[in-house]
């Protein structure tokens, strides 16, 4: 087992003929991901990245190939539409890599998704990977190794940093999920923590948060009341000044809320061990094995 993606994933790539889309499709296929289709409006009927069939619409692609998961490499202007198209075609899991989608677009998209059966991961995220089974994202595959630690993170490269440190210590991962750095996203920490809690393969969880919002505080409340598996956390942005956006649209301390200190104390109160720097996470996880 593992969560969200694995051997049963039948992946559709939206925006497969673009620069990013084609590059990462090749990487995903090389990793062993089952990429069954791509879409690119106007280019339907052709092939991309070797032998992946290309369709004009998601609905056609799903009907022809039985795709159950979609990854979106469409630029920010078209990405909200791409998410809605996938949801309306009945795709179960939608991963949106795209950075820079206007927040009010995501507000409307998320409101629509709340009434559908599709789950969205992202946007502005690296995607997710179940090592050895499926890589659905832009992360470097080789740093991962299969094992029993679940990871969930708002960040991209910081997740790679932690995964790599775990792998170097011989500690494998069940699934690593990047939920993205935007203020409005599809899947929260709590959503992923609940899945890890229920996944028999996952024995412990690493959560990587950052300043801004209250997603980590909600996660702390969930961990304290409903999780039995140990959680180790790191919160980035302990030195960030208030009122300044730290790259991610969601990473800003505003109105005195969303500080690293608040998040760390909420997590510690819920029994979570909080690392002082990324390297310490792997040490702490290792102690629990």
């Amino acid at each position: 087992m593992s969560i969200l993606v694995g051997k049963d994933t039948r992946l559709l790539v939206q925006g497969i003929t673009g620069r990013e889309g084609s590059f990462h499709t090749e990487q995903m296929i090389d990793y062993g991901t089952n990429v069954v289709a791509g879409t690119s409006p106007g280019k339907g009927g052709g092939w991309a990245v070797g032998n992946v069939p290309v369709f004009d619409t998601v609905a056609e692609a799903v009907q022809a190939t039985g795709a159950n998961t979609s990854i979106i490499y469409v630029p920010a202007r078209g990405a909200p539409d791409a998410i809605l198209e996938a949801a309306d075609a009945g795709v179960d899991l939608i991963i949106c890599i795209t950075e820079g989608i206007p927040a009010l677009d995501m507000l409307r998209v998320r409101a629509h998704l709340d009434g559908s059966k599709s789950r969205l991961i992202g946007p502005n995220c690296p995607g997710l990977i179940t090592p050895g089974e499926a890589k659905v994202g832009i992360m470097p595959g080789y740093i991962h190794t299969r094992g029993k630690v679940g990871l969930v993170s708002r960040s991209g490269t910081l997740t790679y940093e932690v995964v790599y440190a775990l792998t170097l210590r011989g500690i494998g991962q069940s699934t690593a999920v990047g939920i993205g750095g935007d203020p409005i996203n599809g899947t929260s920490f709590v959503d992923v923590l609940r899945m890890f809690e229920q996944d028999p393969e996952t024995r412990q969880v690493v959560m990587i948060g950052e300043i801004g919002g209250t997603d980590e505080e909600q996660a702390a409340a969930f961990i304290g009341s409903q999780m039995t598996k140990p959680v180790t956390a790191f919160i980035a942005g302990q030195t960030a000044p208030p009122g300044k956006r730290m790259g991610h649209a969601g990473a800003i301390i505003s109105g005195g809320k969303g500080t690293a200190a608040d998040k760390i104390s909420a997590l510690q109160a819920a029994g979570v061990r909080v690392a002082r720097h990324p390297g310490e996470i792997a040490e702490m996880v290792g102690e629990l094995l």
Partner: protein
Amino acid sequence: MKLQEFQAKRIFGQYKIPVPQGEVAETPEEARDIAKRLGGPVVVKSQVLVGGRGKAGGIKLARTPDEAEQVAARILGMDIKGLTVRKVLIDPAADIKTELYLGMVLDRARRRVVVMASSAGGMDIEEVAATTPEKIITVAVDPCLGLREYQARNIGVNIGLPRELLGKFAQICQGLYNCYMETDASLAEINPLAILGDGALMALDGKIVLDDSALFRHPDLAAMRDEDEETPEEREARLNGLSYVKLDGQIGCMVNGAGLAMATMDIIKLYGGEPANFLDVGGGAKADKVAAALRIILSDPNVKAVMFNIFGGITRGDEVAHGILQALDEVKTDVPMVVRLVGTNAEEGRAILASAKMATAETLAEAAEKAVAAARAEGRAA
């Protein structure tokens, strides 16, 4: 991106929100002419993008055109929290009876735009929220339905507005909501929304913060950017697609990825140093972008050491290494540098840098330790 008060009020006016008929002056003489045209007493208001303008002496009443000229002469060129005043707004003075607050913001946890209103207007709303939260009324708006008139009326009743103002207040609320949605704002605020002596409602101050990600579909709003409000470094960073925030420390950092960049700042602090900046070069950074980033970091005279932390995924280590060398060709510097490259093409990158006599590190902790030590040594030498 923040808009100036005069810009925000002009936009409010397009949404039928009553605003004073003021004008902007860049010289004391213009201020005098405007005051003369308006007739009667005026308020001279500095246009800078920081809070606390009034307390800093940047907002003054003037009874006559002569006085407006004198006051404008004092305010223009004034330094308010590090920003030089280059424009003043001359508004007709209002006969204020009561000050209200009305604002809208995106509530992430609820995933809704939230309307906030308070009878305690004129003050810093964060202070009201901290000391008397019961004085703030909030209503979440369904994005499919928009702000309904009854919701706006309810807000009016709950902040204790007199019955005869409810209709007008609801219109202002809906106007501000439409303004928020149509401009892709992340904050829109009227503080104060004044009840005047004659019973009318008027937006005496205005604040709009726009969502940078949505500026591509608002070229008219993007053109309102006040370049005086940006430092040359911030400007260069923006034009090169870099996320850069200047801080007060001595160790410059260049990192790929926002989360990793924050974690890098944190670990520098953990090892006893202070970061000079946040800088995310983004994914897939090519040599040119890396060079621009290094120029920006080195333009800060406080920087005593530079730390690179690149975890290659889409970003390639050899590209980054070429960028560093390219920048060092352009900017001659003695500032010590510590480079940590991991991931895609990291070995090729390290080989390229070996020729440039740069300190390298394997782990993030080791890189931070070396950068802090280098900055200390440099500080002593200076």
